[in-house]
């Protein structure tokens, strides 16, 4: 029952925000904060109580959900409201709720227009995302997948910035919408294809994830269906040729939008790959693994190079995200337990550090009224503790040991090395590139000759607390990541097993005609 509340609370909270605006500007803020905190508390409660280990002696094929909730929806078509939770989804839901709280907090002073509707959108993004992480009925999943888009679109289009160079906020919002919508459509086709293939094989019409996992598919069909899913998730991650929407969306979005985008929305792409693409199509995934890892490499290098050339601080950070997601892609397709655990950690770490950087650029924007790096420089002595925080998060994003980012990145590299040594060797060059763009960002903003002597407003309590909290998480989990590893671990052991099953027949002698 708790699962449906995770979705209903932000949904109802959003409506309450909208209606509550008439009683004052502050009301929607507090309602939104309260609902986000409630979701966070419920998830943490589930974490505290739940047991995310594999049940001993369970059948190898059964997917052991820690919690399930199910209600009929359209029984004639085999569609149900079916939610389920395992360690992976729990970690990501908790992450979303936490970033949701931060998104509310960081817009406390930034948003002045249509406050109620703004928070409705903020909360409904959470509805969509939590739904995506929990849905195990593919139709429901698709519904939530599409639902994430609309509030995000409004967030960018209505509260975004229009920059003199490049896109307007409407343009950026449209671009975001079209990219995701078009790829989502491909996924819908693939879902339907899978469902019909399943009916053709078993005579049963169902959208249930667990049932569809057992669908026997011929190699070619599996490949096409897999590509449909893959493209949708690749756009969201984003993988390099499909990344065009991200820098524009980030640059034009308000701070809360960027926090949600970087911290939550990108994670749905990785989640989709982990939850659907690999388990539903292990053979086909294995077949494109070298290609996907290659794309990951391209992303690491391309994102890093592009980042160095940006003038807009938010576009800069957006491109570094692309670079980081390259590591995620490599880790996912390496498919070893170590690499996949690293993927989960890097997802969380990236959410923390990148959101913090976006929050910081929002705070810089509030003080300097610019996002242009060319107009910054020498700010170290003028901003109180803000530069110190920025230094910490930049250092985290370059993967300094002691931060969670390091653990994630290195587990991916350690785990992928036995599978793809050359890929990892080249990806290690990404460590150098990360150093280049990270330090470049730091020195363009805070070092060098200052442009004035006047001190700017120091951080207030709310801003300080947000940053300190994130920093504590990045460092604390960086030195003791075991809680995350233990929670997501069992879910992550499944994929290597599936990959091994695929690898097995090819390594032993296969009778002719069978392969």
């Amino acid at each position, binding site marked *: 029952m708790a699962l449906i509340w995770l979705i209903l609370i932000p949904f109802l909270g959003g409506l309450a925000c909208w209606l509550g605006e008439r009683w004052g500007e502050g009301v929607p803020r507090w309602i939104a904060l309260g609902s986000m905190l409630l979701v966070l508390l419920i998830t943490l409660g589930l974490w505290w109580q739940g047991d995310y280990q594999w049940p001993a002696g369970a059948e190898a094929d059964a997917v052991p959900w820690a919690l399930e909730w199910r209600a009929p929806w359209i029984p004639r078509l085999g569609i149900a409201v079916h939610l389920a939770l395992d360690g992976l989804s729990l970690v990501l839901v908790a992450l979303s709720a936490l970033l949701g709280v931060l998104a509310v907090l960081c817009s406390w002073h930034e948003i002045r227009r249509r406050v109620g509707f703004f928070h409705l959108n903020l909360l409904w993004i959470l509805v969509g995302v939590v739904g995506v992480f929990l849905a195990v009925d593919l139709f429901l999943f698709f519904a939530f997948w599409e639902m994430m888009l609309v509030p995000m679109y409004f967030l960018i289009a209505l509260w975004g910035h229009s920059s003199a160079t490049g896109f307007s906020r409407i343009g950026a919002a449209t671009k975001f919408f079209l990219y995701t919508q078009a790829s989502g459509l491909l996924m819908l086709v693939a879902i339907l294809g899978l469902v019909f293939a399943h009916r053709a094989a078993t005579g049963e019409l169902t959208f249930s994830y667990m049932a569809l996992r057992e669908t026997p598919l011929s190699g070619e069909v599996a490949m096409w269906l897999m590509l449909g899913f893959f493209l949708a998730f690749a756009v969201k991650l984003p993988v390099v040729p499909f990344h065009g929407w991200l820098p524009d969306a980030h640059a034009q979005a308000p701070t809360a939008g960027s926090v949600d985008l970087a911290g939550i929305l990108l994670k749905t792409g990785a989640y989709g790959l982990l939850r659907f693409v690999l388990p539903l199509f292990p053979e086909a995934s294995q077949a494109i693994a070298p290609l996907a890892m290659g794309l990951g490499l391209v992303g690491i290098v391309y994102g890093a190079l*592009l980042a*160095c050339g940006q003038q807009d601080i938010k576009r800069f950070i957006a491109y570094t995200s692309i670079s980081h997601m390259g590591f995620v892609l490599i880790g996912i397709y390496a498919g070893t337990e170590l690499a996949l655990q690293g993927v989960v950690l890097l997802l969380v770490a990236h959410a923390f550090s990148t959101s913090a950087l976006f929050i910081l650029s929002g705070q810089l924007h509030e003080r300097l009224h610019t996002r242009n790096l060319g107009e910054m420089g020498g700010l170290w*002595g003028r901003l109180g503790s803000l530069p110190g925080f920025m230094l910490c998060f930049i250092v985290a994003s370059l993967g300094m040991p002691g931060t969670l980012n390091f653990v994630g990145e*290195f587990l991916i590299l350690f785990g992928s090395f*036995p599978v793809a040594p050359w890929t990892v060797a080249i990806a290690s060059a990404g460590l150098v590139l990360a150093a280049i763009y990270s330090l470049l960002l730091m020195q363009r903003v805070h070092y060098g000759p200052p442009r004035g002597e006047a001190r700017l407003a120091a951080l207030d309590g709310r801003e300080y607390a947000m940053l300190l909290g994130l920093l504590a998480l990045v460092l604390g989990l960086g030195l003791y990541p075991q809680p995350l590893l233990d929670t997501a671990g069992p879910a992550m052991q499944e994929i290597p097993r599936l990959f091994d099953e695929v690898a097995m027949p090819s390594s032993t002698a296969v009778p002719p005609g069978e392969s």
Partner: protein
Amino acid sequence: MIATLPLTFLLPLAGTLILAFFGARLGARGSAGVGVSSVALAALATALLAHAYLAAPEAQTLTLWRWIAVGDFQPTIGLRLDGLSLTLLGVITGVGLLIHWFAAWYMHGEEGVTRFYAYMNLFVASMVLLVLGDNLLLLFLGWEGVGLCSYLLIGHYYRTAANVRAAFKAFLVTRIGDAFLAIGLFLLFRELGTLDIAELLRRAPERWAAGDPGVELAALLLLGGALGKSAQLPLHTWLADAMAGPTPVSALIHAATMVTAGVYLVARLHGVFLLAPGVLWLTGAIGALTLLAAGCAALAQTDIKRVLAYSTMSQIGYMFLALGVAGFEAAIFHLMTHAFFKALLFLAAGSVIVSCHHEQDLRRLGGLWRRLPLAYAGFLVGGAALAALPLVTAGFYSKDAILWQAFAAGHGELLLAGLLGSLLTALYTLRLIVGIFHGAAGSDGARRAESGKGLAHGLPLVSLMLLSTVLGAWIEPPLAGVLPAPQHGPAGWHLALEVLAGSVALLGIALGAWLFLYRRAWLAERVAQGRGARLWRLWHHGWGFDAAYEGLLVRPYRGLVSGLRGDAIDALGQRPARLAGWLHGALSRTQGGKLRFYAVSMVIGATLILLVMVAAA
């Protein structure tokens, strides 16, 4: 006793945290107090540990907690105390304390004292973790941590763009080495299934025969990391620029401790390197080359700190040479004595620089020996140790140990390089001392020099002076059992070699004194024109490595960045949008609202349809 081990890094770390959160309230004096006392307490803890260890020398491990546990991947936050880590720990906290204390004098009245001490304390904590880590991942944590602190401290005076650039360069060049080290770690874990150092050294000979390509590759990758951190060819270019930081930083990080981390790494993993004779030879060859190349470059520098920087590279070259001939003990011994005398030289240089109102150009100094007696004494003692003046200095004994190991291992070419290096060392040391303290003062700053006063200025200098003499050489690092025993060469030859090395050093000193005291005008003429000028320029610019890297790496990278700035792939994605926009424009022009246009197009359309129908029929 082992329980006090974590204090050696926790105390400096606590110092950093206090300074980070309450630094503004503490003020400059308070910050210096916190910064110095945290390291003093760490040094005290080290002294207690050393006392206990020397009474019963037995390696101990203390596991604080398991860092990560996934399958076989089980690195811990575990500390290991043995002779090697204890030696390094003593250098880091002992010399570190003296330098922190001296910095209280040096940084007095400067801006950012709190920040300075916060980073310095963080550096000490990271460096301690680097040497105490019992597994390679924790070592890597310290390794990256010291690199970060080095970056932050080189860029301490962040308002000058050149300092920021120097800091960036230092981080980047060492990070290139770190990437190799990281790949080395991946390889070692894949092959041996562990990152625990003791376990690694046990499994390596079981997995690999000597000379196996796998172990050669692993050793090569580790060496890459060591070269970057220790500023050896070809990754040495950052160290000379790193002198942009405050002088105590140069003393601590870029002379005594961090730059010798590469030597520590190779010595710690000696078991892997001994299995890879090819890479071991390469280590020695790189060391020999660096010691000669940097020695020449040191002869042609005009900034006193850059002379010392090249000298540091050259001396670390000696350590790598020692590693290359499997003289691990000699390398660590030289690491220790070098920490003493090079820290002394840097602090004395800092004393000169502050006394002369931030003048550090050799051509603008001179004649200071009367005005700055303590700094002069420091330079004399430190310089003598650097030039390995026989019998009375610490440097003589450690350098002799290295040459003896090269001889014992039968590496004649490396021995020759070492002897030649001694000559160069003596020459540039004399040039430096004569340039600062003799002749005529070249600037107002030097003429108005005021000697430093106070305990914070005097005591560290005097302590390091004592350590740089033969007293320092009496400290025998307790390395037996941790590192392979030194080789014993042919009996009787050791004394002959000592005499030879001593004479070379004396010859160099005499030659230098003659050249720089009595033949200055002649020298100046030589380097002003013709071949001499070309050689001067080549050495002055450190053999042109910077220019080469600028052309080969930096500029292409910049070109790539500016070429890609517009995101060509995204532009490709915009094509369909552009096409749709164009179609939209073209079609909406047909809806112009002009009746005549509609009528004509209707007639044309109807005609066309009719024609088609007729043709079809």
